[in-house]
């Protein structure tokens, strides 16, 4: 049967992995290629590179690492971060990525998704949505009951720094209509807390769109992965530090999920 995917995310700046990466068996923990190879061997189902380079030269360097990764790691690779145009998409796909993640630029100009899907195919376009809870009753927003009260979810852009006022669930419906193939949903509330994924939010997106949803933000324990797969219809879970700091290996998480009755690839 179709398995749930576990996806390590690498933040890459100027061709190097940033945020702490603690692996004794790596010669160079900052090399995205080497880390990708290790995660592949451990059973990662896909890889995501988030390019946080600030300069055009930095983006170019990151693209070179995409090419080197694609030459030796043969699982799906999504690259996002700083994608502003279909030309940027083309470069990333040509470098060897299988899918391209779009976020801020698509919020500012949704045609980017339509045009990208038309040129490169729906399966290539991942809509990355950063969203944060707003505990405020509104009749023009998609409201959800949570243990902490009723809230809606607001889209944030520029790496989670800038609120937009947009209803994230409505935005997800729009990206689906425009031809996105998948949603990478990051909870700005949960991100970095290690307290678990935002279950209510993930569930809302899985119910309100028919696209595959990758849950992101908040993974700290193996139980969190089980919870998000049990409690929501999400297809995949993404995490960074839990793998980088070697709190768990991918095998440990997958064995735990398998023993708990979740179908995962061995």
């Amino acid at each position, binding site marked *: *049967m*179709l*398995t749930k*995917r576990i996806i390590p995310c690498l933040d890459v700046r100027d061709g190097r992995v940033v945020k702490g990466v603690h692996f004794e068996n790596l010669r160079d923990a900052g090399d995205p290629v080497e880390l990708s190879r290790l995660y*592949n061997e451990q059973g990662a*189902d896909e890889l995501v590179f988030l390019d946080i380079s600030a300069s055009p030269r930095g983006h170019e360097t990151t693209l070179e690492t995409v090419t080197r990764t*694609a*030459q*030796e790691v*043969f*699982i*799906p690779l999504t690259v996002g971060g700083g994608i502003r145009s279909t030309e940027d998409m083309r470069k990333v796909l040509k470098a*060897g990525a*299988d899918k391209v993640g779009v976020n801020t630029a698509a919020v500012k100009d949704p045609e980017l998704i339509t045009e990208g899907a038309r040129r490169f*195919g*729906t*399966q290539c376009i991942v809509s990355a949505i950063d969203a944060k809870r707003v505990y405020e009753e509104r009749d023009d927003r998609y409201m959800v009951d949570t243990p902490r009260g009723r809230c809606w979810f607001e889209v944030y852009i520029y790496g989670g720094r800038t609120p937009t006022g947009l209803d994230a669930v409505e935005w997800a419906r729009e990206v689906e209509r425009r031809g996105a*193939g*998948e949603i990478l949903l990051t909870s700005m509330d949960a991100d970095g807390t290690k307290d678990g994924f935002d279950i209510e939010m993930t569930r809302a997106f899985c119910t309100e769109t*028919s*696209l*595959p949803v990758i849950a992101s933000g908040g993974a700290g324990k193996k139980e969190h992965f089980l919870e998000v797969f049990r409690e929501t219809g999400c*297809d*995949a879970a993404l995490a960074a530090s839990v793998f980088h700091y070697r709190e768990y290996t991918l095998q440990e998480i997958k064995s735990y999920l398998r023993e708990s009755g979740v179908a995962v*690839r*061995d």
Partner: protein
Amino acid sequence: MSISKALEHLGAEVAVTADGDVIKGSDGAVLPGVGAFYDAMRQIEHLRDIIGGLEDRPLLGICLGLQLLFTESEEGGRNPGLDVIRGRVVRFGGDVKVPHMGWNSVHIRRDTPLFKGIRDGSYFYFVHSYYAIPEEDVTAATTPYGVEFPSVVVKDNVFATQFHPEKSGAAGLQLLRNYLDVVVNSKSI
């Protein structure tokens, strides 16, 4: 393109081409494919006779490349395919999410050289919205997704996978290695 990178990684010499003479001069061919059925058919229409008449030269179709081998597809209306294998291509229906995206199990129904060293039930990576219904006995493996659809078909020297072996990690590379062995062996005959 990922498939050429994977084949090169395995030591093959690869030319990405739409030139019939180059294909005729090769030891084996791969028909990949992304995008829509009709557009892809238009692009390979001029190769119809070559692909249909590869004779002893092995061919590996991947994803849309599998679907193109069939008589017709319902994608985008009703469009004729290469008709190397009798059958039609239909869209997933019912309760499943479309596209079928991710790692799913491949259950071997018939032994072929492609499966050497690959365990029954191994996982491969899929991305597709349509699947083939063969009208001849070509199904070598099946995968469950609402229906049990053919994920590997084999007819003489024509092999095809609905999944992407070039994105399926170690199992995928093993399958491609097996295909290259088929190519090398058919050359020496």
